[in-house]
């Protein structure tokens, strides 16, 4: 069954040009790359994942080693499952480690959580203009999507101690994290809103994005949580929170 001659093949009139324009519609390479990054960050197949997890558990130090490898202030543990990450956020004893080698990102934190921005919008309409990301007097930060820094950096002196801007970021995110631990989702969002308004550069923006997502999960706002998860995956596809973001997106 070959079907009729396609309308796009017409040379007379506007039908042909109209449909040929639609035929050539394609996403920009940045969208393709971001999509590749997003799916690459998905967990491996369950059977392989379980096999690897069983092997890693036998070693005994995998959790600590992974916490040091993540390189984020939250000390988030990536054990291939969302539950471990959620545990690390909600348990007070997993207080955030000092931030090391934050992922360099020029992405802005999403709009103030009380009025979350559309996930497709990269700009927060209510936020003042922000200066470009500043270079840090720290060890070379990991490039976007690159592997986390190796173990050992977490034992250095707090890098933000001499950096007031970083200290502010850490303090505000600690506040958000503490609110989450106490099951106070709104307070966490308030702290993240202040983070968005008061900080510049936002070197810990990936962590803030993750905490925002968790706050919405805590509040039961599934749509907002899903938006935050998609935004996190789009902006930081190589980050340590992708497994949790995937889990949030898969929640009914």
């Amino acid at each position, binding site marked *: 069954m070959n079907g009729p001659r396609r309308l796009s093949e017409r040379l007379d009139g506007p039908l042909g040009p109209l*449909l040929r324009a639609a035929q050539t519609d394609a996403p920009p390479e940045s969208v393709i790359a971001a999509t590749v990054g997003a799916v690459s960050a998905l967990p491996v197949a369950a059977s392989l994942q379980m096999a690897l997890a069983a092997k890693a558990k036998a070693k005994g130090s995998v959790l600590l080693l992974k916490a040091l490898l993540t390189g984020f202030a939250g000390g988030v543990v990536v054990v291939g499952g969302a539950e471990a990450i959620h545990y690390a956020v909600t348990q007070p004893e997993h207080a955030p480690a000092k931030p090391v080698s934050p992922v360099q990102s020029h992405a802005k934190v999403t709009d103030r959580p009380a009025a979350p921005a559309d996930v497709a919008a990269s700009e927060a309409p209510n936020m003042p203009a922000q200066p470009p990301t500043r270079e840090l007097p720290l060890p070379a930060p990991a490039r976007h999507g690159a592997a986390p820094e190796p173990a050992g950096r977490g034992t250095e002196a707090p890098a933000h101690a001499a950096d007031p801007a970083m200290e502010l970021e850490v303090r505000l995110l600690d506040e958000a994290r503490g609110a989450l631990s106490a099951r106070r989702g709104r307070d966490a969002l308030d702290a993240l809103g202040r983070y968005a308004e008061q900080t510049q550069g936002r070197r810990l923006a990936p962590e803030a994005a993750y905490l925002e997502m968790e706050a919405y999960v805590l509040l039961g706002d599934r749509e907002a949580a899903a938006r935050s998860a998609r935004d996190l995956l789009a902006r930081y596809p190589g980050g340590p929170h992708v497994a949790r973001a995937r889990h949030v997106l898969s929640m009914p």
Partner: protein
Amino acid sequence: MRAELAPPRSHGAPLGERDAARASLNDERSAFVRAHVEFVWRALRRFGVPEADAPDATQQVFIVATAELGRIEKGRERSFLFGTALRVAAKVRRLRARKPLDGTTDPDAQVADLPSTEELVDQRRARAIVDEILERMASDLRAVFVLYELEQMTMAEVADLLSLPPGTVASRLRRAREFFERQVERRTTNRGGTP
């Protein structure tokens, strides 16, 4: 002493068992995305996803598909992706509180004039016209029209992808083409007959 776990990947570092498996999986996933991303993008756009939302929606489709990759029958990837794209598009539209996709839009409502042939060189504007017309088309007709006219699938491929009888595909395509031609003609008439 070599760590039991492979060190974080970096350029030139040896790959451990997990990293090798992961690299292979990522290559497979990357190839899957690149093979179908344009198809998914166009499906989303032609089913009403605004350009601003299309990147996010595209990721959603592939996230779902990647999670199901092992269960999708070989050769049915496009069918799965198309169905997922339609669901994601419907969800995006619901979130934006736009008109439903069931063709309830009044096809006789005031339409924008068709630009001249020269103006149609502006691809973006042309696509906007196509999308406006498709917006008024019933979704069952739109699916057949998009797959046949825009994706240039054969009738048999369309029937297979949509799991429809060939006769149903032919019937819907005929009605869809008639609708599309009528809409274009109306817009051309509004311009005084000049193309």
